[in-house]
């Protein structure tokens, strides 16, 4: 396959004992693309994310990031390479402030040692000030600056999702994995989220893989959609193709589904 692929999953299979969570999954993302990953609960979508980010080592198959084999690499190293993600159930550092959360994302770009940090060497102080400034800038860009000193756990649900995306962006990723960002949002909020995701994609040089159950979000923002069921890829294509695909309708969308925007 072409070396321009940002991410490529090559026959990835993930078994937990007798359970096959992901079976022979193939996937290729080209740069700047926004690809949706949909399927019923338990179809193995989050497992795919966990395999990509190094939480799990796949039973079989390989994961390539920008042509480099990252199969089973430690999560912090995967992050350093340029893959960031959010979580299905928000996993912010709840008792830390919003700016600290973002700072934790930025932290992986610190080059100084811990010893330099304790001694507050001039080089370290400069670096820390720059990162702090950058964290504030990122929060400002995403419209979250007013929350900067509030504990992350005290924010409204939708804002916590956005802070989580901000934290992921702070690691300066080239590939962003979003796990159900619209979960628990009302239609207004998810529409705002759609704008937000588009905005992020336009402003940061990113490729996005998106898991979502909210079809209005998926159909609106995704260039391409991939459907998983029982760990297998059952369809792949544009939103129109997916909506017309009988297997997808049977497994997931349900008969009578039509994307009308009034979901």
């Amino acid at each position: 396959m072409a070396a321009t692929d940002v991410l490529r999953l090559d026959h990835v299979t993930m078994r937990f004992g007798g359970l096959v969570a992901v079976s022979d999954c193939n996937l290729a993302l080209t740069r700047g693309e926004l690809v949706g990953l949909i399927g019923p609960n338990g179809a193995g979508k989050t497992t795919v994310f966990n395999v990509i980010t190094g939480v799990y080592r796949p039973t079989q198959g390989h994961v390539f990031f920008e042509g480099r084999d990252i199969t089973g690499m430690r999560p912090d190293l995967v992050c350093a390479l340029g893959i960031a993600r959010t979580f299905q159930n928000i996993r912010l550092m709840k008792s830390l402030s919003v700016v600290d959360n973002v700072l934790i994302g930025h932290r992986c770009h610190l080059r100084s040692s811990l010893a330099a940090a304790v001694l507050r060497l001039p080089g370290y102080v400069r670096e820390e000030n720059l990162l702090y400034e950058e964290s504030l800038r990122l929060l400002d860009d995403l419209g979250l600056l007013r929350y900067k000193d509030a504990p992350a756990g005290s924010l409204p649900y939708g804002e916590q999702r956005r802070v989580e995306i901000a934290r992921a962006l702070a690691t300066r990723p080239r590939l962003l994995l979003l796990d159900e960002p619209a979960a628990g949002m009302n239609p207004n909020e998810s529409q705002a989220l759609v704008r937000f995701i588009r905005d992020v994609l336009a402003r940061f040089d990113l490729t996005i893989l998106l898991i979502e159950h909210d079809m209005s979000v998926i159909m609106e923002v995704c260039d391409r959609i991939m459907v998983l069921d029982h760990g297998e890829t059952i369809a792949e294509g544009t939103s129109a193709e997916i909506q017309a695909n009988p297997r997808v309708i049977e497994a997931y969308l349900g008969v009578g589904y039509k994307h009308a925007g009034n979901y």
Partner: protein
Amino acid sequence: MVGDVEHAFSYRDPSVVARRARLKLACNLVSLALAAALIHWLQRNLGDYPLRILNLAAINVILAVSLNLIYGFTGMFSLGHAGFMAMGAYVAALLTLPQATKDVIFLMAPLAWPFNVLSAPPLVAVIAGGLVAGVAAFLIGLPVLRLRGDYLGIATLGFAEIIRVVANNIPSVTNGALGLKGIPGFANNLWWTWGWAAFTVWFISRLVSSAHGKAFLAIREDEVAAEIMGVRVTYHKTVSFVTGAVFAGIGGALLGSLTSTIDPKTFGFMLTFNILIIVVAGGLGSITGSIVTALLYTVLLEALRPIEAGWRLGPLVVPEIPGLRMVVFSLVLLVIILFYQRGLFGGREFSWDWLVNRLERRARATTRGETPSALRARQPEPYRPSTRADTRDKSMSHGMGQAASGQGGTNDDRDALTDEAGRDASGQQSKLT
């Protein structure tokens, strides 16, 4: 579109940041000088008994702050503190015991090499004690730090018990159950104990307050998420555990010198437990809490002694009841935990911000000819968690670019925001009014 916003300004005026840092440094230096004067005075004017209590308080500060780094900041439930203290105490004691004492006290077996020939000045001995404890922590940490929560607690507790049992059974090094006696009392000196306490507090607070040190907090909050956000979890856990153990070893070394005698029974589980009480009652993740509570704890335990001696309150006669102070003490703890579930300080720290803010506000107000309250009224309102206001739609509207200044300031950094941003905000405000 948000992307078009030019960020020509910085969010915090570097000169303001530097000025605040200078003010805080001045506050620190002044309070250090006052503390030094106080120690000088106390050291000269206090009797042996109160001096001893204050020395013990300093050692408890060292132990509590070091356990707080491991448990409160990094979230590793470790019950191995007594083990690390024992190692520090034995190493330091063996290095400082005079040769004559060594010849006398080792009755069961002669002292083994290298301790029979080695001796060191107190400072070197204390540092060596800390380092040995640190090495032990590194070795034990390799397998044990994979565990989490209660399991880690049990494993580290097991380690501490092993150290105690081993100390009981190698008479050629530890003199077995007889213990070591006549340890030079260099730590019976406020400069020593509080000097080390100050160093411990300085080191650990610098470690956890840096952006680098946020990794510890991230691990405490969510280990999986931290690792995915690029935190080297094993590395940071090891650093935290070893650093905590080094200071526990130093604390143990000072304790041995203060009490002049150590034996394996000294380093039982109750010792760890006492420190754990201080850390939890003071607040997990609060160095200030650990310091204050360690002081209160040590002083209170002694101050409650008179109630054991038997006393009368009018017609009520209380007989002499040994152990009554522990009952009262436990009640105090119960009340603390009932009313302050997150400890006395609940993760908050002392900072000079209030003073610096006040100084700066006053300075500004006088230069602009405004009263401080009028100035405060012009500051943009930061987000308050309790007022859930419908701010959501506003910030979702994506017009946040120009609102940078309006959304800017909060709390202690308020005054550090650039003057440019401040002027914008005030300009808009005054146009409206």
